[in-house]
């Protein structure tokens, strides 16, 4: 039994002529926190979308928890244990916080198929309990998300993944739009996940954050992985060199 929670082999995605992702070989171990870095348009989000089956890949393999997987969609990925905070948040603006937190997996009192009766009180209380841990401030969780600040919305999206135990959490630029305090809160959530031994893939442009929190950095450039660096053996200048293309990892020589 290996301790690799997720592995991709030759994972590739073409959008028509656009080779957004090309031959990605990637591994993450149980309990490991790996950062994915790279310039805008480097293919980071595309990589995430193939793993979580938001889109169907052009070619390649995804091996999750020891088994090759072919999820039909994000819900199957989630049921298998991959929680994702997408870059474009995936919140329903007209719904309140509990409804968003439990979207697609509502707690029900009576199961009547699609007409199952919602357990609104249980969802409200679980939301309170879950959000208090993140330290986010929200005046009234029963208000529609629409009226909340970008940071509050982001925290709701992150709390959604943190509230449910998963084998692997993926966050696509979770702190991109956040203030200092909110960023600290998100980083706290990430630390908590680390303590709980949950694996995490974090996409981020924030060097400090990555060096503070992560174990390993994988750099994407023009759709290819071009470096795989241990945080202890590298420094920000080095990473920038890989991102911009000044340097390429020895084992990725073909990724020019």
């Amino acid at each position, binding site marked *: 039994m290996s301790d690799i929670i997720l592995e991709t082999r030759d994972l590739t995605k073409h959008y028509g002529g656009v080779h957004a992702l090309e031959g990605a070989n990637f591994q993450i171990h149980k309990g490991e926190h790996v950062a994915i870095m790279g310039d805008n348009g480097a293919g980071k989000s595309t990589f995430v979308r193939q793993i979580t089956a938001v889109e169907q890949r052009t070619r390649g393999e995804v091996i999750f928890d020891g088994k090759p997987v072919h999820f039909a*969609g*994000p819900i199957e990925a989630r049921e298998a244990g991959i929680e994702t905070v997408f870059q474009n*948040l995936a919140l*329903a603006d007209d719904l309140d916080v509990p409804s968003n937190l439990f*979207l697609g997996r509502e707690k029900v009192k009576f199961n*009547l198929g699609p007409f199952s009766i919602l357990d609104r009180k249980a969802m409200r209380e679980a939301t309170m309990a879950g*959000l208090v841990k993140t330290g986010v*401030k929200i005046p009234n*969780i029963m208000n529609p998300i629409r009226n909340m600040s970008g940071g509050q919305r982001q925290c709701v999206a992150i709390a959604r993944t943190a509230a449910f135990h998963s084998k692997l959490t993926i966050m696509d630029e979770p702190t991109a739009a956040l203030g200092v305090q909110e960023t600290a809160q998100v980083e706290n959530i990430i630390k908590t996940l680390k303590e709980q031994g949950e694996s995490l893939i974090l996409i981020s442009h924030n060097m400090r954050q990555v060096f503070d929190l992560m174990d390993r950095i994988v750099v994407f450039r023009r759709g290819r992985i071009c470096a795989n660096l241990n945080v202890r053996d590298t420094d920000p200048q080095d990473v920038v060199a890989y991102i911009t293309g000044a340097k390429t990892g020895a084992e990725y020589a073909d990724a020019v």
Partner: protein
Amino acid sequence: MSQNSHGIGGLTFDEKKKVRAPEWNVFFALILIVAIFEALGFMLQGQSFLFDSAGRFDSIFNEARLKIIILQVAIVGIIAIGSTQVIILGGIDLSPGSVVGLTAMVAMSFAQVAEVNGLANPKLMFDGIADLPVIAPLVVGILCGVLAGLVNGALIAYTKIPPFIATLGMMVTARGAAKWWSKGQPISFPTESYAAIGEGMNPVFIFIALAILFHLILTYTVYGKHTYAIGSNEQASRMSGINVERHKVLVYTIAATLAALAAVVLSSKNLTAQAGMGVMYELDAIAMTVIGGVSLSGGRGSIIGTVIGSLIFGVIISGFTFLKLDAYYQEMVKGAIIVGAVVLDQWRQTRASARL
């Protein structure tokens, strides 16, 4: 954490200063419109619109007119309950009027009596199919609705045709089928039990019962939650694991089934079915819905709003009759109401996004 607070992180929130539910605004609009007609009534006709001016003691209201208003509204209102769900879902349904026509024809042909005044029913559609129990036309009628809705929903969900086009196709097709069914002949002479469905004030009771049922469903069930979620952000709903396609089929099917129920009530009330029944009902239903505060961009609105919206619609129409204005004016005004409601909706949207 105090009992009435839903805030976290030390931010407080004053329950008493809660924003007024939008349904209240619709309700105030209703009061305002009634007041306007009252004023016009006194100025132009010298009599009250809704209140009893004959000086009777048993009632302060003009019951006859009130009854006419809600009876008029009830049947289209049943359709509007479906339109509300479709529009909250972020879609639109142009087919219910034609589904009414088709369902009325088909259901009525299974509700006919064998003999009229001792002679064989001259309008009998199918030889030997007469005097069936009332359950037969009901089931057949509902099946018509389910079928039309399944086709609408499947086209929209799986072939990604815009709802406007898919349901426009159904609107034309179902109307054609309604005419083809009896080669354009009206179908009449229903059984007593069928005629009982739409008798007297029954349409109103059926409308209210369905409104309550679907209000509860939209508020308290997963179905309702997902309807609002998809209308609010379809992509997010999909990523959250909601089976968006299946849900769309379900909502369009429910909407068409409600139209079929309206058809049963209407044909039973009129004791006859004609292929032209229900023409333009879809627009009236959409108008009621939009007046009731349901946003055409999806995600927002409620059955309560639509019910009040339907009353506003009914009051305006019968207000015009009361002021003895021509039917031509009524139609023109109807058009203006629909456009006006949409303009209002747009304006509410931009104001809402300006606040962000």
